């Protein structure tokens, strides 16, 4: 039961952190259409996070719902992958971060839609449809920026190079993943590596971007070891419900 709770936190926290980060672009995006797009992607991700975290709370059976889990845990209790907590940076950084995530999430949700846990399968089927659309947009942008102007090409190559080291964590399984595999709940993360590399590699090729060489990969987010950026993000996200417990509209 504890393992499934941890697993659901990982799913929910990655959605939640990326949602919060994407939402910070509202009123700052380079064009109005992107303002709307980033807000809508964030909205879907918030909705997905709520479904995962509400279920996590039910599995834990300690009286916590999605709000309690979102607003009353510190960074060390968060289980998101490190990629999503990387700062928004420039527009290319945000697009590449979203793209790496979308390809991974799309594969993972497809596998989870066949989960032996019916609730997980239902959430994954719903979230997967939304993520397919996010992926269409983020892949489109990677190609447009890469195969765009000299400046956009240079910037998006920098983003790919800087964020590549956070992609390895997607595929590193631990005891919790092994327990999920054994119960037919979730996929072995390693099985997502090849399809991820194939899809991302093809898109980078179309975008005239170089795929970074294999190197050191960061790890630890799923186990609660985070960079300092996450604490700042959470401070902003959590300040209101922590300062005014029980506040309502």
């Amino acid at each position, binding site marked *: 039961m504890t393992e499934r709770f941890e697993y659901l936190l990982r799913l929910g926290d990655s959605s939640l952190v990326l949602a919060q980060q994407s939402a910070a672009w509202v009123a700052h995006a380079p064009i109005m*259409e992107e303002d*709307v*797009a980033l*807000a*809508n*992607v*964030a*909205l*879907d*991700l*918030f*909705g*997905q996070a*709520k*479904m995962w975290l509400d279920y996590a709370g039910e599995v834990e059976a300690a009286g916590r719902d999605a709000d309690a889990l979102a607003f009353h845990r510190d960074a060390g209790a968060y289980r998101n992958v490190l990629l999503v907590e990387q700062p928004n940076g420039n527009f290319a950084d945000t697009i590449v971060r979203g793209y790496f995530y979308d390809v991974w999430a*799309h594969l993972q949700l*497809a596998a989870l839609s066949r989960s032996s846990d*019916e*609730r997980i*399968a*239902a*959430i994954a*089927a*719903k*979230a997967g*449809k*939304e993520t*397919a*659309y996010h*992926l*269409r*947009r983020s*892949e*489109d942008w990677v190609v447009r920026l890469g195969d765009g102007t000299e400046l956009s090409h240079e910037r998006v190559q920098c983003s790919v190079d800087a964020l590549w080291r956070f992609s390895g964590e997607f595929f590193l399984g631990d005891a919790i993943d092994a327990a999920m595999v054994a119960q037919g709940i979730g996929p072995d993360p390693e099985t997502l590596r090849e399809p991820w590399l194939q899809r991302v590699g093809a898109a980078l090729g179309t975008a005239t971007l170089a795929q970074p060489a294999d190197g050191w990969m960061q790890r630890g987010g799923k186990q609660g070891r985070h960079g300092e950026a996450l604490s700042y993000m959470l401070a902003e996200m959590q300040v209101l419900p922590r300062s005014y417990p029980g506040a309502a509209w």
Partner: protein
Amino acid sequence: MVTQEWKWLDEVPDPELPSVSITDLGIVRDVRWEGDDLVVALTPTYSGCPATAVIEADVTRALHDRGVQNVRIERRLAPAWTTDWITPRGRARLSEHGIAPPQATLADGPIATAIVRCPQCDSTHTTEISHFGSTPCKALYRCENCREPFDYVKPH
């Protein structure tokens, strides 16, 4: 029999697409009596759609107004909502109100954009301006014939 109850729900508009009722949108999945409780199963369109809670409140209020005392809303996730469930009447009403109805179900992954018909002048010479529009369920298009921008309900 719940024919009357379905008719009442036919009169509840979607808060963000008020030309269409929630039954035309295909989000009412089941209506049944359990003892003295009227159970209405609703499915969300998009998982983060802010209209979900409003729709639940609207359904409860509409049924209370018609004398149903105990209303229970059931949130149903599976099978996931699809725009294929929008009724022919719903599609016609969207068009009448300047919103292009969805063309075909989105395949897995990126697809070629469907041919989208302008709800104003019926031209198929249209361009996608933005993958996203004013609500999670819509994209923004422009007609190259009459030059009007319009919302398009994304196939989902």
